[in-house]
Each structure stands twice: as C-alpha cells, then as structure tokens.
C-alpha cells in the first residue's frame, strides 16, 4: 500500500529533513542541499526516493528542477494517520454492529 512505502521512505532521517524543507515551499536541489551534511547528489537520490513514493514531484524551470510536495501522496498518508480515536471508533462500530446482527439472526 502506498502509505507503507511513504512510511519506509520517511524512516531515513536525512530524507525526512529534505522532505521537511519542502514543507516551506518548492525548492531547487541546491537550496535543499544547503546546510545538510550530505552531498548534492545524495540529496538528489533522496528526492528520487521521495518522488517514487509519491510524496514529492518535480518540474523544470529553465535548466533547474524545482521540487515540491505532492498533495495527493500526502493526503493518502494523512488519511491513514488521521484521527486515532476516529479510526478506533469506526473499528468499534463495525464490531458492535456485526456481533449484534449475528446475535439477532440466531
């Protein structure tokens, strides 16, 4: 499932840093790499992994590539994480109704 890939990809701390930097807005690679303790090609690799996981997209602007967060990928991840109690109550509702119906049909 897509969220599982997203989770695995975000488990890398450097990659997470790159990802978090993109939350501030679209950036070219060199701006993302600035201040990180890894080389620019390494940052490009991280961006590729994020892109493959559907979390980041890129576009060309002249000779530069600009990276940004990909809304749909984030939505999916968010939907999975959102609402601890909301999820729990949904699971509860299903079980309560299922067991009630089972009892009624006996």
């Amino acid at each position: 499932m897509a969220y599982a890939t997203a989770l695995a990809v975000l488990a890398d701390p450097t990659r997470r840093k790159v990802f978090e930097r993109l939350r501030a807005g679209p950036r070219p690679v060199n701006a993302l790499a600035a201040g990180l303790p890894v080389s620019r090609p390494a940052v490009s690799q991280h961006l590729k992994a994020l892109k493959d996981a559907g979390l980041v997209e890129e576009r060309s602007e002249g000779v530069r590539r600009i990276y940004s967060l990909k809304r749909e990928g984030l939505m999916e991840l968010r939907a999975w994480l959102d609402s601890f109690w909301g999820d729990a109550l949904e699971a509860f509702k299903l079980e309560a109704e299922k067991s009630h119906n089972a009892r009624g049909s006996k």
Partner: protein
Amino acid sequence: MNDVAVIAPVRKTVRVKAPIAHAFEVFTSGLTRWWPFDHGVGKKPIQKVLMEPRLGGRWLEISEDGTQTSVATITHWEPPHRLVMIWQVNAQWKPDPAMKSEVDVRFAADGPDATRVELLHHKFETMGAEAGASMRKDVDGGWPGLIERFVQEAERSKS
C-alpha cells in the same frame, strides 16, 4: 508561573446500530475484538489488547512474549452509560503511569436498536503545555505532529 492553559478537548462521536447494553459491552469487555493493534504503546508485536471491565480495571496490551503494558485505568464505571479512563501514555507514545489525560466515553440510546457513543479525550494540559499539545494533535489526527509515529511505524514494519 503556574498558569495552566486549558488545551481544547478532542471529541469524536459515532452512531452504532446496536442497543446500548451491547455497545457498552463491546467497547469494554470486547475491546480485544476491535481495537486496531497498530495503535499500541507497549512492547511489539502485540498479541492481545483487553480491558478489565470494572472500576479500577486496566486497559492492557499483552505482547507476544507475554509482557503486559497498562495503557489506561478506569476511574469511573457506569455501565452501560459511561466510563472514564486515565490515559497513561506520554507524548512519545510510551506507557507512563504519571500521565493523566482523560478519556471519557458516554453511551446514549438512540432508540432501542442504536446508540450514540461520544468520546471525549481531554485534560491534555495535565501533561504539560508542550507534551499535552502534542498528544492532542496526535489523537485528533494532524500534521506534522505524527511524523515521529510515521517513523516508528516505518522502522518497525521495515525490520
């Protein structure tokens, strides 16, 4: 300064097509049948989640190696209308008996065959302003408060 700013509660409701007594029973004694196991705080992998259905009873996680972790303790027991639990989980989602945010669950009959369940998680400010805000964000769902949980989950599921 001792001023403690109240952190807004998280309120969730659900309507269940089952009578109130049944809904209460499933929520409490039947916890093990519906609780999503990936919502655990204790030792993984979790083998069983259960609730001791009485005043002073615990919400327990039992891991596959038999480790028991207490997640919450019941402080008000009023079947089939209400139960209140002290939520003993800290902002890092680790069990912590010193924590006391509170989960208040009320059941109201909506006709003979349906129940409205309202869950209120509040008193986050008892955890401290920062930790309380983080827990509030986590249980309500939100971004980016859960990033650490992504990470934990990712690391766990990778191994």
